[in-house]
Each structure stands twice: as C-alpha cells, then as structure tokens.
C-alpha cells in the first residue's frame, strides 16, 4: 500500500516536472501580453522637424509620456513634466511666443484644432466665416512653430468628444490648483514612437506631359512650345496634414483641366495648333522651386530654347475679382506685354481684371519666390498667375494647416482655367484681338466643373510634402495617368532633393490618453484594504474563538504561527 502510494506520488511529481516548461511558457506569454488598452486613442500629427544647412528647426522630439495640463494653471508653475494642451479656440499666442523665446522647458505641446479644419472636411459657407479667425491665428502659430527650434514634442490633433472631456477635466483640476503630477492623478498622455530619423535621400518627382502641335506642310522649322507649369507639392507645420488645397492644389487642378481642353482640341488634325504644348507638374515648390530648376536643366537644350513662354499657376483657387500676373522682366518688355495683353483681353471678356506685378530677380539671393523666376534665370520668358499679392517667404504659402478645401472656390479655379485656356487658344490660333469664345460654357469644349471638383477634393485630402512621398506614391501615379490620358507623351523624372534641407520622419502617431490614479490614491486604497483585512481578521477570530484568543495572538506572537497577509 505504502509503496503504491509512493510510486503514485512519484508519478505525480514527474507529471508536475514535465509541466514546468509549459508553465514557464504560459507565464512568459501572460507577461508579454502588453497592454494598449487606453480608454482613448487619438490620431495626432507631429510638427515638422527639419534642418536648414544643419541648423535645427521645428519640433526636435517625438515621444511623449507626461501628465496633461491646461493653460488655466497658475503662471510660473513648472511644466517641464507635463503636456500642455492648447485648443486653437483659446490660444494665447503671446504666451507661447514668450515660452519659446525664453527657452523654458515643457514636457510637450498638444494643439487641438477645430474639426472644421480637418482635411477632406467639405463644409458649408457658415463654417467658413466661423473659421476665418482661426485661420489667421493658425497662420501666425504656424510661422512661430515652423521657424523656431522647439526642444519638446509638438503635436496637432483634432477636437472630438474625448479630447473635450479630457480638457474640461484637466482645466477643472488646474483651476483648483492641483497640478497634474504623479501624486494627484489626472490624465496621462502617451505617444510611443521611435526617435525621428533623418530621411536618407528624399526624392522629388516631376511629371511632364508633351502635346505636339502640327507643322504646316513644307515647314521644316521646329515648332515653338508653350509651357504650362504648376508645382504640386506642399509644406506645412504638420506634414501629415499639409494638403494645400489652394497652394498649390488649385494650380494643379487648373493645369489638368487646361491639358484636358487642349487634348480635345489637338486630337482633331484640323484644330491642331502650330504650337507644342508642354505640361509640367513639378515638385520641390516650397524649397525655392528646386524641382522646376532640375526639370528645366534636364530638358533638351533645343527644346528649352523652343519654349516661347511659360505660364506658371500658383494659388488660383480663392480670388474674387482680380488675378495677378507676376513677372520678373520689366513690364515694357515686348513678350511680357504680349502675354499680359492676351490675359487682360480675355479677362475683360470674362468680366474680371488681371494686373501686372513686376519683381526683379536678385541673382545673389538664393530665394526663389515665384516659379517663373527659375525660367527667367535661364532666360525663358515666363509669368506666374496667382492671387497672392506679395511673393511668399521661404516655406510659406505652400500648404499650411489653414489651407483646406473650404477656402477654395470651384468657380475661381474655373475662371482661371478659362483665362489660361482662352488666352492660349487665341495666341495659338492667332485671334488675338477678336472677341470669340472657344471654350464657351455650353459647347463641347466647356470646362468640366465635375472634373475640377473631384480633383480638388482628392488633392485636398492628400498630404503632399515631397520628402515624405515615395517614388511610386498613389497620388503621383494618378497624376501621371491623368496626364497620360491628355497628352501624347508623359515622362516622370526622379531627382534627389539635395540642397540644404534635411527632413526627419515620424509625422503621424497615435496618442493614448490614460486616466490614471495617483500614488496617493493607491496608498490610501492600500490603507483601506489593509484595515479591512485586519478588521475582518479580528471579527472572524472573535466570533469563532473569542476575544481572549485575539488578545493572546498579540501578546505572545513568537509562540504561534500567524499568517497575515
């Protein structure tokens, strides 16, 4: 009997021993179940991080693990271990400016943007008037952040119910004077991303479409070419939100529509003009039109010399009555005069005005404010059509956060398309001073508003910061395909964005918002639980053994084994 029992026990222990690895495995598995069960996860978009010739700009950090704080804390409090949440609605720009200029430390900055500014949000007119003030403020904020060296992570997010609730809670706590720290609990904001890395060799991609004209019989001279150019990439405070509906989505849309109109005209041999048309979508616009420069230099010398003139389209989506023609040659230059007259005649017929603006090129200055200046530097006549009255500064007016779909009117783009197409057609077919409408609204050559709208919608949802676009980005493929449909020959050119800019990745992340308990609370809970267990213990001892036993437990502790938890 005893032997049997022993052997049984041995069997049991054998079984146990064989289970150990299994048990260990299970324990490891359980420990590995790492939890990301935050109550709320919010998409956040990081402020751009870049260097210009090694000088750092933008947000220099990306990961975040701090308590939330709002602006209603007492001034002068130490915020080096908290994330400041700033809704754009209540943004105090002066405070932020001081904070950054004094180089005070901050755990992080989360800027909440109104939902109406979300790319792809196609709102009505009432929304537009409401957001007008935001846009101005946002532009100033962006200028501050983009041109500053900010030694903490800065993220943008869109307001929603959860962030509103969190903000209300945080404000309430801050107003009470309880700063969010480990001892008071509150909200903890966690973004776990790896350190931002340099983008190794950013590429810029230019897309070129070629629509050949027809030569008259017996004419062996090369045909002159007219180039229509628009830069399609953007730059903004948050690269993942930089959609640039107006700058320069509107220009791209106008170019595609002009290409479509002329492809219809040129498909018929009878209406094929004596000019070649060259359409180019260039990249690198915000960086002194580096893509345009590279594309021009890569063009065949003869081809470049055959360019009669080039029209650059830049920000043509939100003007009312006057469009500007920016040139760099003096206005009394014969070619410029001819181009401008062509535009102003057509504009007169269409019922609006164009004005000429002249800005000299300063060769010693590396800044190229307008795309046509790259042409002018290579002695090609060019002009930029734009609604912008002044030349934009470096990295500005290139797709900022406020530049969203609502700001752009389809009608403005359609008017711009008509202006360009009509004046080109009059020039090509030699009807300069005649009042004819080739692209009349109800003809087969009318501008297609649906086409304009759908392309504008697409571009308004696609962030297009060149260093973050791969060579085979869907958008680039789509643009290429569209040009292939309209022109005879399309070529795509990949160039590396060398120059002075360095970019860093991690533009988008997920923010986990945890509602955390404080250490004080945990200690208090432990105290409560401990006293509960002690009371329970005493109660049980008294009811089952009597009071004397309880007292004797404490009187002679070493003599008795007491298991206390």
């Amino acid at each position, binding site marked *: 009997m005893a032997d049997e029992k022993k052997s049984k026990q041995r069997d049991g222990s054998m079984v146990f021993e064989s289970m150990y690895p299994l048990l260990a495995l299970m324990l490891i598995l*359980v420990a590995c*179940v790492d*939890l990301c*069960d*935050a*109550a709320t996860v919010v998409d956040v978009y990081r402020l751009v991080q870049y260097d210009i010739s090694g000088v750092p700009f933008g947000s220099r950090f990306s990961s975040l693990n701090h308590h939330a704080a709002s602006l209603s804390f007492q001034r002068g409090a130490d915020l080096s271990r908290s994330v400041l949440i700033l809704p754009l609605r209540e943004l105090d720009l002066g405070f932020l400016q001081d904070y950054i200029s004094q180089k005070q430390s901050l755990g992080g900055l989360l800027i909440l943007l109104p939902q109406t500014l979300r790319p792809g949000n196609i709102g009505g007119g009432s929304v537009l008037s409401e957001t007008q003030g935001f846009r101005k403020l946002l532009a100033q904020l962006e200028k501050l952040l983009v041109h500053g060296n900010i030694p903490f992570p800065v993220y943008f997010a869109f307001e929603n119910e959860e962030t509103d609730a969190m903000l209300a809670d945080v404000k309430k706590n801050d107003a009470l004077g309880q700063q969010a720290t*480990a001892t008071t*609990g509150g909200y*903890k904001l*966690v973004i776990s991303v790896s350190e931002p890395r340099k983008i190794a060799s950013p590429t810029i991609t230019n897309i070129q479409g070629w629509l050949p004209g027809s030569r008259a019989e017996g004419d062996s001279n090369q045909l002159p070419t007219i180039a229509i150019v628009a830069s399609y990439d953007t730059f903004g405070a948050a690269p993942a939100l930089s959609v640039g509906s107006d700058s320069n989505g509107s220009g791209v849309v106008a170019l595609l529509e002009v290409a479509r109109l002329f492809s219809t005209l040129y498909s018929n041999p009878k209406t094929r003009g004596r000019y070649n048309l060259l359409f180019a979508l260039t990249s690198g616009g915000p960086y002194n039109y580096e893509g345009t420069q590279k594309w021009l230099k890569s063009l065949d010398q003869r081809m470049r010399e055959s360019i009669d003139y080039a029209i650059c389209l830049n920000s043509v989506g939100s003007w009312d009555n006057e469009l500007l023609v920016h040139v760099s040659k003096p206005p009394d230059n014969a070619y410029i005069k001819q181009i401008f007259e062509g535009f102003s005649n057509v504009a007169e017929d269409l019922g609006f005005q164009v004005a000429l603006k002249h800005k000299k090129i300063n060769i010693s200055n590396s800044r190229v404010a307008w795309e046509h200046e790259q042409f002018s530097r290579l002695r090609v006549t060019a002009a930029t059509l734009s609604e912008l009255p002044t030349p934009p500064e470096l990295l500005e007016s290139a797709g900022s956060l406020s530049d969203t779909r609502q700001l752009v009117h389809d009608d403005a783009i359609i008017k711009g398309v008509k202006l360009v197409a009509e004046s080109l057609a009059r020039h090509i077919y030699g009807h300069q001073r005649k009042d004819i409408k080739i692209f009349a609204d109800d003809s087969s050559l009318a501008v297609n508003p649906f086409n304009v709208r759908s392309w504008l919608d697409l571009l308004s949802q696609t962030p297009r910061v060149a260093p973050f676009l791969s060579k085979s980005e869907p958008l680039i493929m789509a643009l290429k395909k569209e040009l292939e449909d309209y022109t005879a020959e399309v070529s795509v050119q990949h160039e590396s964005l060398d120059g002075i800019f360095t970019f860093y990745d991690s533009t988008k992340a997920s923010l*986990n918002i*945890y*509602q*955390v*308990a*404080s*250490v004080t609370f*945990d200690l208090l*809970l*432990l105290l409560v*639980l*401990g006293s*509960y*267990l002690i009371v*329970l*213990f*005493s109660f*049980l*001892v008294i009811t*089952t*053994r009597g009071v004397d036993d309880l007292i004797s437990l404490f009187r002679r502790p070493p003599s008795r084994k*007491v*298991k*206390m*938890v």
Partner: protein
Amino acid sequence: MTLFHFFNCAILTFGPHAVYYSATPLSEYDTLGTSVKAAVVYLATALVKLVCLATFLQVSETEVFDPYQMTKYGFQSQEALKAMIGFIDVAGLYFALAQLTHRNISQNHKFQAVGLGWAFADSVLHRLAPLWVGARGLEFTWDYVLQGLEANANLVFTISLAALGSLMWLRKNKPKTLIPIIYTCAVIIATMPSITSYLRRVMGWHFPKVVGFELMTSLVMAFISCQLFILCQRPSL
C-alpha cells in the same frame, strides 16, 4: 505605479480567503487538504459546466451572438438553461461535501474548508487573468476594485451555500419546519449568478450597482444561513 494597483486589487480579491483561513479554527486543525480537494472538484465541475454550455447552449449561427439583441423568449430560455447548468455547481459541491473522504474533520470545519477552497478556485479561475492583464495597464478604472469586492461577496455566498449543503445532506436530525427554508435559501444562492446576469442585462444595471446588490444579499444570506445552522445545531446538543 500600476503594479501597485494590481497589488491592491489582488489583496482585495484573494486576501479575504487567506484571512478567513488563518483567523478561523481552520488553520488550527490543518484543513488545507480539504480545501485543495474542493478546489480540484471545482476545476472538474467547471470543465463539466463548460462542456454542457458548449453542448446545450444554442448560439444561432446566422446572426452574431449578442444577448442584447435576442428575442425575449429566446433570451429567457437561454437564461433558464444557463441557470440549470449552474446547478451543476451544486452537484459538484455535494460531491465535495458528501462523497470525498475527509480525514477526521468535524462537520463544522468541513463545510467551511470546502467553501473556502471552492471560492478560492473560483476567484483564481475567473479573476486572476483579467486582473493581471487589466490592472497593470496605465488606465485607471474602478472595475478591478469592484471585481475584488465581488470576489468577497462570492466567498460569503459559497460558504453559505456549503453550510446549507452540509445541513441538507450531512445532518440527519434537523427540525422539520426548517427544511423548506433551507432549500429555498440554497436555491436562491445557487441561482445568484443568473440573478446578477439578469439584473445586468435586462434591467440594465451598472457594475457598481450589481456589486452593491451582491454584497448586500451576501450579508443577508450569510446571516440567514448562520441562524439556520445554529437552529439546526441546537437539538443535537
């Protein structure tokens, strides 16, 4: 400080079992073996229950299983079935109390030891994994504290049920008038899981309210069981 919270919740969930064992005479008579046996029986019972649930509970294949969207009749029949399966617990408890041989242990201690082992196994099986996974997260919720309180209520329920069970099955000479009351109380305690699930799903009670209800009823049931036990003990004395 999340490990701290986990520690707190674990104390609340499993502490009372240990305290109960060490404070009552159970520790003096070394009844740990009985408790362990009861826990093993609990495991076996849980397995049988799972098999029964999987076999008999109908989950309609056409629609997603969602108790909220079930028809009233379907819900009721399913719940009734679940309650029936819940009585397997009682059978397991009977087996642990009556069939297992317990070496020289008084009836008084036996039911306590069995109830304790049973409740502890239940807590470990149902609450340890969620606690480990959940309470270590950064996010703070009251859920795990409430779950710990629920474990306390469950301990009281199980010991009460075991007491009533020992009255029903092990004590022969009990007053006739008390028998219906004993059986009624036992049925109420045995259907407690169904009652709470009914409160939660049909009445739409929230977790804190349900736990409060459980705590209250557990105290009431414990009091009643205690009185019954004392009343039954009197004639034998």
